[in-house]
């Protein structure tokens, strides 16, 4: 779950990481009052869950009494496919130096890593590629946040000393604690700004929460969600769905199996309309709703179903599919391959609903059967 900048900054502030004064608004009418409460010169920043908004024109500076026009323009923007619902109005900050500070779960090495660079405000990957000696890393023991002196040592490598070093060390410590306490996958401050008056402020906030940890983490407010309606619906049903641009719906019990099915369709010259993975919780209703969902994607003329019954009661799933088809005036062509516990019972149900059943092991057989049926049409 990605947090928008203003949400991430709220987390920062609650955890001892200083941020610029600011207010978030949803409509132009709030802009003037918000801006004047913030300062005489303000920055207006669109709140979208993607990077690169600056280059896309999503950040503007204005005098506080002249924000209305800018706010109106920004709220009408669309950035990389995301419409702008909210603006963050912040005090205008002039940084003397821009740094980078980040805590990330590095899934490849299986470690939490603290990253620091005195060269911030730009893409850290780029800094790492061009000036590797300007990026300092600390691998963190998942059982214990490193003591402050280790963090101080890391930050000192960036060329800092004295009071400013203490401030930066404190912020690094707070960011690490925040990441552990709140199950964050990413907690990045880029830029971390040093001001002429000695203040250090988080100029931006890139925060991603582990969805799997939401059972123990509460976050105030509403966070950014997938904007596609079908994907939202899939989340409610409890399956993983990715919308694609083909005509053949895919339903599979397993991500690898779904991807293989897609790969085989493409190889045969057809394009999948979606990726749908049922997970291990198949019920009649789950497949009923999944099937309907898949058919909602425009242009779907056929569906391929690929199931294994280990944990899953595939015969119940089949009933759901058949029920959904029964409710349709013009159901698509459906081919199903289903193996495992109660496979024969499952096949019978499918057949009763007009589904072409493939009993061979290989997914190719199911794909071939579907293509044959499509050819016949």
């Amino acid at each position: 779950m990605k947090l928008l900048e203003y949400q991430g900054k709220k987390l920062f502030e609650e955890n001892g990481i200083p941020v610029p004064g600011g207010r978030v608004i949803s409509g132009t009418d709030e802009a003037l009052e918000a801006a004047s409460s913030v300062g005489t010169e303000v920055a207006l920043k669109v709140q979208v869950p993607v990077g690169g908004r600056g280059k896309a024109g999503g950040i503007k500076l204005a005098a506080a009494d002249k924000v209305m026009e800018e706010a109106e323009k920004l709220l009408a923007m669309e950035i990389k496919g995301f419409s702008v619902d909210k603006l963050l109005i912040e005090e205008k900050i002039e940084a003397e130096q821009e740094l980078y500070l980040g805590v990330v779960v590095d899934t490849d090495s299986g470690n939490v890593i603290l990253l620091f660079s005195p060269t911030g405000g730009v893409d850290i990957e780029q800094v790492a590629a061009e000036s590797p000696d300007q990026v300092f890393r600390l691998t963190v023991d998942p059982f214990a946040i490193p003591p402050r002196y280790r963090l101080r040592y890391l930050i000192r490598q960036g060329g800092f000393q004295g009071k400013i070093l203490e401030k930066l060390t404190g912020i690094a410590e707070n960011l690490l604690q925040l990441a552990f306490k709140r199950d964050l996958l990413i907690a990045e401050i880029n830029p971390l700004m040093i001001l002429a008056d000695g203040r250090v402020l988080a100029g931006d906030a890139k925060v991603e929460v582990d969805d799997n940890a939401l059972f123990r983490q509460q976050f105030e407010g509403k966070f950014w969600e997938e904007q596609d309606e079908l994907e939202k619906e899939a989340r409610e049903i409890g399956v993983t769905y990715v919308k694609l641009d083909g005509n053949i719906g895919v339903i599979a019990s397993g991500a690898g199996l779904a991807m293989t099915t897609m790969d085989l369709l493409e190889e045969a010259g057809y394009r999948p309309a979606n990726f749908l993975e049922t997970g291990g919780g198949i019920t009649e209703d789950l497949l009923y709703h999944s099937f309907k969902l898949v058919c909602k994607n425009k242009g779907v003329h056929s569906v391929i179903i690929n199931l294994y019954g280990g944990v899953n009661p595939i015969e119940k799933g089949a009933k759901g599919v058949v029920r959904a088809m029964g409710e349709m005036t013009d159901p698509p062509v459906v081919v199903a391959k289903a193996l495992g516990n109660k496979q024969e019972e499952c096949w019978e149900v499918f057949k009763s609903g007009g589904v072409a059943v493939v009993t061979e092991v290989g997914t190719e057989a199911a794909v071939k059967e579907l293509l044959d049926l499509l050819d016949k049409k």
Partner: protein
Amino acid sequence: MGILLDENTAAIVQGMTGRIGSIQAKWMLEYGTNIVAGVTPGKGGEEVHGLPVYDDVYKAVEEKGANASVIFVPAAFIREAVLEAIDAGLKLVVAVTEHVPVHDVLKMKTAAEQKGTWLLGPNTPGVITPGVGKLGIMPGNMFTKGRIGIISRSGTLSYEVAGLLNEIGLGQSTLAGVGGDPVVGTRMINLLKEFEADPGTDAVIIVGEIGGSSEEEAAGFIKTMNKPVVAYIAGRTAPSGRRMGHAGAIISKDGQVGTVQSKEEALKEAGALLAEKPADVPGLIKKHL
């Protein structure tokens, strides 16, 4: 023979008193697996399927000589369950649970590495040594006894590969699922090493998928192997930047990390045989045995 799970395995089911744990325990017992006890804190003294339930793993070790565990507890409790199993000295821990917070996985993984414990998962179908036993959720009847090892990141896809092998009479020594999460305990490369050393295995199949770098890492060892390795990688048509079901199955946005292409190149370079589709796997194996 086979790896991880063999005739000496004495396993417990952590969470056997739960709905899924109880059903799965039954199926594992029916398959012939040597399950010796269940463990659920607070339920000590109960019985499930005629087996004792203990409050703690140590007791299963003391009383029953347990040396392996398969875990079905909810995501909120799996970290403690895994850490206890490792601490109690079990050699093999199978974490079936999915949707485990990654910070918890990091702890589990670190503890397993420090203690030298085999940790499959989380989010793994488990491990099966056909004819001996299974610790996990795979349907036992889809596997046959034989001499091909399978390492997989994907449950159902690996069942399909086993099924295709069965059709040409090639049984399996062991199938081990590493788990579909972005971070897992034991990685592919370590299982490859076991298969290479296992006298009961003649060849190894890797069922991989997009995301991560475990296939690339495994390639480093394949170079040195004597046994043939066949690899199939799913997801060549998956769009980059979108998560394909598994938390692990995602190609980075710039499309340069974790692609089928990068994995296949590394594997090919290491001498592995690449299958373009699952149906090609049995033929490749047969040809190189």
